[in-house]
């Protein structure tokens, strides 16, 4: 019987590059930027790292298919380095590899690093992810905003929500992330934007306008993990130690897309992964126990339904919570306190680790102008793929003692 990951792995150090249009750097240099910060934070020599996981998604415009770019760029010491890819949940997948390696006892100190260099594509969205068992002609004329916009339609239909009520709540979600991102020196977008501006922006896919969609960025994020015992021996005080409380991954089995078990108004895998994560972390009442969270806000509607899928809002209750400021910076459970994908940015392979980075900074009281008061548990939610066919990674981190 497995005993889960809770408190078996401590975060020794983390780093995150500035996200944005990084014309001055390639993927390798971006990796060095986050790795250098993580190494300094961990207070170790790079030769003490015994295994590493590289997460990158769009290899066609990025670092290439193997893990060699990380091994070479970071001058790792001929250790095992593995490249992973799992759509937009790639960052969490890299983190999971390193955390599991330490938890198994196979190595003492492991590195997870995610990187993506996307602005070189020259356009705003992501390159196509066609192929395999996802032939595009079974989904004619699909666009990424379109397939998430359908969730909004299904949500309005299920809960009898008028369009203007939903549209206003979605605008509040984006405005909140812009306000938070303005306080984050590493964020891609650092400009506050009003709800009126957001609601007047050009339509992308009904009801999602331009400001309901996150962009893509260049950037990198890294985590160095070990056991709590080794962290103590390296001088980390247990009071100043962040450990992994839960780490779960749930993938669609195809039922949402074709077998009619799903009404389109939520993300099924988020619900599965969240309940497993709460059980693993020993959390019984997430709305009372989670202090802050970072969700995969690729679109504002994704953030809204995720609040319900994580059981933080009741089903159909997320709009009221958003309008009440429950998830704002000064609310009960701040969401996207670093600006989220919307404003911190979305370099695919780095995003999952970037979310953990913010929770880590907050738990250690190092988040500067956006620091929250005494957070206990931070949750990250990383979604790859489409509402009906996807990969969801959830982590919960907290102080060791």
């Amino acid at each position, binding site marked *: 019987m497995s005993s889960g990951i809770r408190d078996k792995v401590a975060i020794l150090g983390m780093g995150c590059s500035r996200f944005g249009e990084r014309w001055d750097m390639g993927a390798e240099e971006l990796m060095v930027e986050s790795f250098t910060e993580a190494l300094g934070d961990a207070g170790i020599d790079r030769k003490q790292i015994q295994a590493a996981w590289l997460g990158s998604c769009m290899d066609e415009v990025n670092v290439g298919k193997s893990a060699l770019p990380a091994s070479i760029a970071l001058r790792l010491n001929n250790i095992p380095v593995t490249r992973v890819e799992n759509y937009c949940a790639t960052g969490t997948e890299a983190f999971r590899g390193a955390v599991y390696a330490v938890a198994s006892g196979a190595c003492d100190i492991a590195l997870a690093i995610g990187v993506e260099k996307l602005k070189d594509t*020259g*356009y*705003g*969205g*992501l*390159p*196509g992810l066609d192929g395999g068992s996802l*032939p*595009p*002609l*079974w*989904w*004619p*004329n*699909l*666009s*990424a*905003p*379109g*397939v998430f*916009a*359908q*969730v*909004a*339609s*299904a949500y309005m*239909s299920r809960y009898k929500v008028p369009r203007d009520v939903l549209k206003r709540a979605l605008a509040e979600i984006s405005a909140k992330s812009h306000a938070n991102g303005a306080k984050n020196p590493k964020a891609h977008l650092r400009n506050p934007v009003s709800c009126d501006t957001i609601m007047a922006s*050009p*339509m*992308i*896919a*009904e*009801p*999602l306008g331009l400001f309901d969609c996150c962009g893509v960025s260049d950037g990198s994020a890294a985590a160095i993990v070990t056991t709590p015992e080794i962290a103590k021996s390296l001088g980390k005080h247990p009071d100043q130690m962040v450990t992994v409380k839960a780490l779960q991954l749930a993938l669609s089995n*195809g039922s949402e*897309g*074709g*077998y*009619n078990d799903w*009404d*389109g108004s939520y993300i099924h895998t988020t619900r599965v992964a969240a309940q497993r994560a709460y059980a693993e972390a020993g959390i019984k009442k997430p709305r009372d126990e989670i202090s802050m969270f970072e969700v995969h806000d690729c679109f504002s509607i994704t953030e809204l339904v995720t609040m319900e899928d994580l059981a933080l809002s009741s089903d159909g209750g997320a709009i009221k919570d958003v309008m009440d400021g429950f998830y704002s910076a000064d609310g009960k459970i701040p969401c996207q306190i670093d600006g989220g994908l919307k404003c911190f940015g979305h370099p695919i392979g780095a995003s999952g680790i970037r979310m953990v980075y913010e929770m880590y900074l907050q738990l250690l009281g190092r988040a500067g102008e956006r620091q929250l008061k005494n957070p206990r548990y931070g949750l990250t939610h990383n979604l790859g793929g489409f509402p009906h066919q996807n990969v969801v990674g959830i982590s919960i981190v907290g102080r060791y003692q």
Partner: protein
Amino acid sequence: MSNVPVNPKPVPEINAHSKPYWDGAQRGELMIQRCRGTGKAFTYARCWSPYDFSPDPAWEKASGRGTVFSYTIVYQPPYAAFKADCPFVMAIIQLDEGPQMMSNILHCDPESVRIGMKVKLCFETRSGGFKIPQFEPA
């Protein structure tokens, strides 16, 4: 992404499993499959049943009638070839036989589409005369 050079609109790469579906479309028919073990119908084409993994699911002609399950109106084309279609409706259709499939809803004002609306099969002709199953208001 509308500057991605996909032009004209793509036609499918047909394999052994999907051939009956696309052959049916060229005849003006929507073909779906039915599991030999559970009797349940499903889309898209597979060489085994997703319900019980029984092999060789039966092919049958669907009625071509269904209901709008969810939809959106796309204003920004995914690829340049779809620009002229904008704004277009992207929808999940629940077929009368049970399975859901994704489609566009053609030949109507996009603003007139509603969840629960009845739709029927039609076809879009792409390059080389290739027919793609689509839907329109019933």
